[in-house]
């Protein structure tokens, strides 16, 4: 009976906390912006005025008009529709990469922080090595040797996230594991597995959620940079990075090709950065910058 009660209590606490989070104007703004982005991405097939791959060379490089809100590209494809589908691509890839990074990184970080000693030393050394290579360089190198297929792109995007999650989780675990209630768990003979997953990690959730929010924005940025350089999402799948790169060729006489997808990327980054800031103030007020 008590466990069911705890469960309900947990949800109530969550909603209370969420309500407090939304009491800030800036937090409301970023939250609504992100909901809007997700809505646009989900609804892309129904709200796009044209299929994203509908080619019409006769109508190429047309400026913004009522028919084509953001103009058309060199093949006459509707930029607005492609931007909407691009949101779908970026958000879904970023979510998968961050969730993969989170699961793996939190596990590694928890082991490192909880076990400590030599294991911790070795894991943190390896993390430091991976952190020595800038994310985009690592991603570029990996995709170039493995090939730009979706699973490899996601892998390339998550490797750095794994190390970031591992670091933050380790730090949180180190501070939590010295608390009295953890000692109490040991005293009543609980298994290490149960202590880590049942008692230590749930109390480290704040910094992890903050990091996850910021990293979704980061992964979207890395993915678009990768696509911009031709090593990410490949045609005909629409991606903001690829669209900006294509627009770069027609910059002088058709700047809208690069401007509009870039604006969406920029808005997405603003939304996730603001949300991350708000989350940090809300959940992890003592923590510093996580990235």
């Amino acid at each position, binding site marked *: 009976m008590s466990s069911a009660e705890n469960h309900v209590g947990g949800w109530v606490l969550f909603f209370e906390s969420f309500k407090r989070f939304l009491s800030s104007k800036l937090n409301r703004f970023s939250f609504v912006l992100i909901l809007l982005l997700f809505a646009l991405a989900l609804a892309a097939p129904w709200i796009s005025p044209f299929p994203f791959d509908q080619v019409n060379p006769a109508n190429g490089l047309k400026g913004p008009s009522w028919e084509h809100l953001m103009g058309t590209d060199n093949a006459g494809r509707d930029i607005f529709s492609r931007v909407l589908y691009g949101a779908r691509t970026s958000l879904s890839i970023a979510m998968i990469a961050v969730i993969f990074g989170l699961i793996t990184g939190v596990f590694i970080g928890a082991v490192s922080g909880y076990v400590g000693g030599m294991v911790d030393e070795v894991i943190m*050394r390896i993390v430091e090595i991976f952190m020595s*290579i800038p994310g985009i*360089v690592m991603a570029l*190198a990996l995709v*170039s040797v493995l090939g730009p297929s979706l699973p490899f792109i996601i892998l390339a995007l998550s490797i750095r996230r794994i190390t970031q999650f591992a670091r933050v989780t380790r730090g949180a675990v180190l501070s939590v594991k010295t608390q009295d209630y953890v000692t109490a768990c040991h005293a009543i003979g609980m298994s290490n597995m149960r202590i880590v997953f049942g008692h230590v990690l749930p109390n480290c959730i704040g910094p992890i959620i903050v990091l996850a929010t910021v990293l979704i924005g980061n992964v979207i940025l890395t993915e678009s940079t990768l696509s911009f350089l031709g090593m990410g999402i490949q045609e005909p799948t629409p991606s903001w990075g690829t669209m900006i790169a294509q627009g770069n060729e027609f910059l002088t006489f058709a700047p809208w090709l690069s401007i509009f997808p870039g604006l969406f990327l*920029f808005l997405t980054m603003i939304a996730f*950065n603001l949300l991350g800031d708000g989350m940090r103030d809300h959940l992890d007020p003592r923590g510093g910058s996580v990235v």
Partner: protein
Amino acid sequence: MLTTVLLRRLFLSIPTILGVATLAFVLGHLSPGDPAIAAMGLDLEGHSSVEPGELERVRTELGLDKPIIVQYFQWLGKALQGDLGRSFVSTSEVSDLVFDALPTTMLLLLMTMSSAAVIGIALGIISAVYRGRAGDYIARMIAIIGVSTPTFWFAIILILLFAFLIPILPVTGSIDEHGFSAMILPTAAIALHPAALIARMMRSSMLEVLSQDMVRTATAKGLSRWRVFMVHALRNAINPVITVIGFQFANLMGGAVAVEFIFSLPGLGSLLIEGIYEKDILVMQGAVLVIGVAFALSNLVVDLLYMVIDPRIRI
């Protein structure tokens, strides 16, 4: 005492650098298919057009007939001596290509770092001093826009603005072609993000210091506001900001890759991307190695500098 600490830190960076080298080696060997074919710059479709004897010769030349662990130590030994192999596309030594590219990137990063530091610190101070007033909101707005603007897109917007609409700066090309002005737009493109990060860091660090007793004491004894902010508060607030500036290298290098490519600056980033486009594995490997080692070294320098600046962390 300080010397032992410095030596210990120096010693600790060796495994990291070795690790980076190992990572670069592994990256070069992850490629599916025959590394000899890849090293010859051929696609898999071109396989049949290579004479079998030729392939064998390249394999032996690259040491690919030996076990992987032997290959690794041979490669590492050569890399330590500055021999990174030969590019199969341009046939020049990879180490020569890297050393030709290094000055451009270093100049770019140095210019970026210094302009980002100056702008970021200034914005952060304005923000903290005018906390809650118009100056603070404007500075914070610039900062959030700065951290959210994609570097490569900003580079394109800068080109659009300054090279076509107000044509006063060169769009692409190296210093040799256009002189110093070739570096202005690339620097601005990369500097925006770190400047914004530094501004945010500076603001929070300054606000923390401004709430301390010693600031109240300084004000109480009748010092001017200017003196309190610029001398007493700033000196105490700047340390964490210096660390942030120092650790920006990886971010900057990441931004530099795309920006060098957009502006056709012949630096490490362009070399890396060319290596990737041409499937020139050894060039790619060399660029990754140098970037990683440079990062590890810059972290080392920041740590050492920090120990000298702030005696509290010499433990």
